[in-house]
């Protein structure tokens, strides 16, 4: 028994370690499981463009999915064709976009919780399930990679990569001077915008009809040259609006199913048409109007819509709103670039359509605006609110030149600078019924088919239309755009980088080794 005491102690010591080990591992697992619960964990996105962060608007929609009491969860399913790791640029881009899409959808599912189910089908293991699901969704013979957002029987299909990414595909692969072959380029990943739009569209009940008012002076919104609204019409359609055109000079009243009457830079609106619009407003109608200046047959065209605006208690000016560009301490100048302005949060009122833009720091671009100012005899029950205006330091008015480009004369007296309203909201108590008439007027805020303007003002446009049809849950900002920064290397850069990494850095490390050896020996 003499030797049993140390043996027992050793045994107890070993048992102690085993038991402690087991306990420690259990605690480790518990802490890991608890810390990874969606309610407790935090995702810190330190990427320069915050490409893993979704916007507050999208987050709000996703977190609110559960509270909506949906009968079934919303589903997002990807059906991607596996792509090889090839040196072909187009395949590389498609692989990258697929990877970005999966990352994005995994982020969305974290916010949506149980109300949003995300599934990535794998053709290696899920063939039967893929076939069955595609039949259920009635997808037909869709080719390539795509994602489906569905809520019950309703669904929206997104082609990947073309509807979730902005890819610049060269028209021709002919070798350019210098021996460079044009290659496709991934300009931006817009997956969040695309998926968030489809989610919102599925959540919104019904499809409000927008009538675009046309007449002899403006007979088409999609002319191939000049100011085409094609891009704008596409995004309205994607957001769940039904689109129609209305020859406003040929009807006696605005149709009953008109949810919004849109007048995009109208010209030549007759007094009768303007009365028609006013009547529509007074019975609870909703109007969106944006104005600009224009030229027809070398004459400046600046319609003022007096028959419509004056009963509503405001007027539109004839001069051009410009910004004063400082060129010194006390001096300002005009110029062609004075006609374009960027209006940020400080120039916006806390109107529902602008609040999300202010929160997200998204400015609005204005070009060739005219002043909207209160005046005239206002009808009873009309409320005018200035919602977008130039900064106190910026705005001044310059006269248009007859038949010339608009002049941008610098006012002699800088005290003539003042805030100038370029956007207004008008609400009208209806003659009958309980639905207020609403009109949003923007001067110089063009929603043209140009990347510059549509990139800035698309949110404002969609918010305006959604607010006009009382779809307030859809008033937000659209997703972040991720633009990958691509390295552009020439042979010299490649050679110098390789020399640094393969020669100089290891050489320096070797020097450190020798120095350490020397110091050790000398001690």
């Amino acid at each position, binding site marked *: 028994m003499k030797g049993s005491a140390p043996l027992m102690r050793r045994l107890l010591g070993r048992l102690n*370690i085993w038991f402690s080990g087991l306990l420690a591992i259990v605690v480790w697992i518990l*802490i890991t499981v608890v810390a990874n619960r969606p309610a407790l964990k935090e995702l810190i996105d330190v*990427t320069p463009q915050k490409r893993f962060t979704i916007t507050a608007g999208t987050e709000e929609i996703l977190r609110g999915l559960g509270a909506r009491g949906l009968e079934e969860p919303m589903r997002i399913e990807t059906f991607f064709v596996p792509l090889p790791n090839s040196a072909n640029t187009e395949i590389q881009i498609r692989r990258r976009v697929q990877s970005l899409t999966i990352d994005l959808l995994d982020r969305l599912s974290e916010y949506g919780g149980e109300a949003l189910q995300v599934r990535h089908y794998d053709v*290696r293991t899920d063939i039967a399930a893929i076939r069955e699901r595609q039949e259920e969704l009635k997808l037909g013979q869709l080719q390539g990679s795509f994602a489906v957002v569905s809520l019950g029987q309703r669904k929206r299909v997104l082609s990947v990569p073309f509807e979730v990414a902005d890819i610049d595909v060269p028209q021709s692969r002919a070798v350019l001077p210098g021996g460079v072959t044009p290659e496709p380029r*991934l300009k931006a990943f817009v997956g969040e915008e695309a998926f968030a739009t489809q989610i919102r569209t599925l959540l919104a009940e019904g499809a409000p009809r927008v009538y675009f008012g046309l007449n002899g002076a403006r007979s088409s919104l999609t002319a191939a040259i000049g100011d085409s609204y094609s891009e704008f019409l596409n995004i309205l359609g994607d957001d769940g609006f039904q689109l129609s055109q209305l020859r406003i000079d040929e009807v006696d009243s605005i149709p009953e199913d008109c949810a919004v009457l849109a007048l995009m830079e109208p010209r030549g609106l007759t007094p009768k048409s303007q009365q028609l619009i006013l009547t529509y407003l007074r019975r609870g109608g909703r109007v969106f109007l944006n104005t600009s200046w224009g030229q027809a047959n070398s004459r400046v065209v600046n319609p003022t819509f007096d028959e419509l605006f004056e009963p509503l208690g405001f007027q539109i000016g004839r001069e051009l709103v410009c910004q004063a560009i400082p060129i010194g301490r006390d001096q300002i100048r005009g110029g062609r670039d004075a006609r374009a302005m960027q209006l940020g949060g400080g120039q916006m009122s806390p109107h529902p359509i602008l609040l999300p833009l202010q929160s997200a720091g998204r400015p609005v671009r204005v070009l060739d605006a005219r002043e909207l100012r209160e005046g005239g005899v206002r009808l009873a029950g009309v409320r005018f609110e200035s919602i977008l205006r130039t900064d106190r330091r910026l705005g001044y008015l310059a006269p248009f030149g007859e038949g010339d480009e608009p002049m941008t004369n610098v006012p002699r007296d800088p005290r003539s600078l003042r805030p100038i309203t370029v956007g207004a909201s008008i609400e009208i108590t209806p003659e009958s019924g309980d639905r207020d008439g609403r009109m949003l007027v923007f001067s110089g805020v063009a929603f043209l088919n140009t990347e510059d303007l549509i990139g800035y003002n698309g949110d404002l446009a969609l918010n305006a239309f959604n607010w006009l049809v009382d779809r307030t849950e859809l008033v937000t900002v659209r997703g972040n755009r991720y633009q990958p920064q691509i390295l552009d290397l020439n042979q*010299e850069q490649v050679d110098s*980088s*390789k020399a640094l990494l393969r020669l100089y850095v290891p050489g320096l490390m*070797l020097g*450190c080794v020798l120095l350490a050896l020397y110091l050790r020996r000398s001690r």
Partner: protein
Amino acid sequence: MTGFWPTFKKELFSYLVNPLGYLILLLLYAFRGLEIGGQIVVASRVPFAEDQFVASYLLGNSSYLLLILVPPILTMRCFAEERRTGSLEVLMTAPVTEAGVVLGKWLAALTFFAGLWLPSVPILAILQGDGFVGGDLLTAPLFASLFGLLLVGALFLAIGCFTSSLSDNQLLASLSAIVVVLGLLFGPQIGQRGILNARVERASLEESGFVHDTLVWLTDELFDPVLAQIHVGQHLGQWFGRGLVNTGHVAFYLAGIACFLFLTVRSLESRRLA
């Protein structure tokens, strides 16, 4: 925590004067130079995003090799050598606590380990110059990647300290640590592949019944989420390496470090009692 500071200073000094550490540095950056040189040639031929380049610089094969080999090598003589020579008993009679000694040794190893990665920052700073790769490489995702590497390294060093405390044979200590490290780096990947195969098998089974339902629950509800949470390779490549810090993962590493350091202390205490 008595004994922490003297232990830390002594151990760190021993790492700094040992040429082995600099040899590791030389081999790492020589290997990495070959690796990244190849990536630069690829980047000159196909579209290569800046963030992808930074991630591939820090998280290439050389980095994984460093993670697998260096922590066990740095910690193998922490306690094993001292047990073999008998100096551990002498140390334990000094007015120091086991916790102080363990923490001092671990932190010294971690400090040296962190120093191995530091040259990456000035190298990338030079590479972003006009005559080299260019672009904006010193961005927050770089530091997120370094943070991730440090956390993983700290966990592996804690594992190395524990295995070293269990044996008086350095080789055995380092091999044990390597096995555990490999398990954490690649085990979940093998597990997930197994789950994928199980799903393929499942597809051929009837879609009902106890066996099928149990397989579904085990794979989809239990193993797959757990493996994703402990998949160290995925944490580095898909999260930290891309500039996304998940506090759940940070908690995993911190808890793991605490777990293994606690076990190391317990191991030394039980030896003292024995």
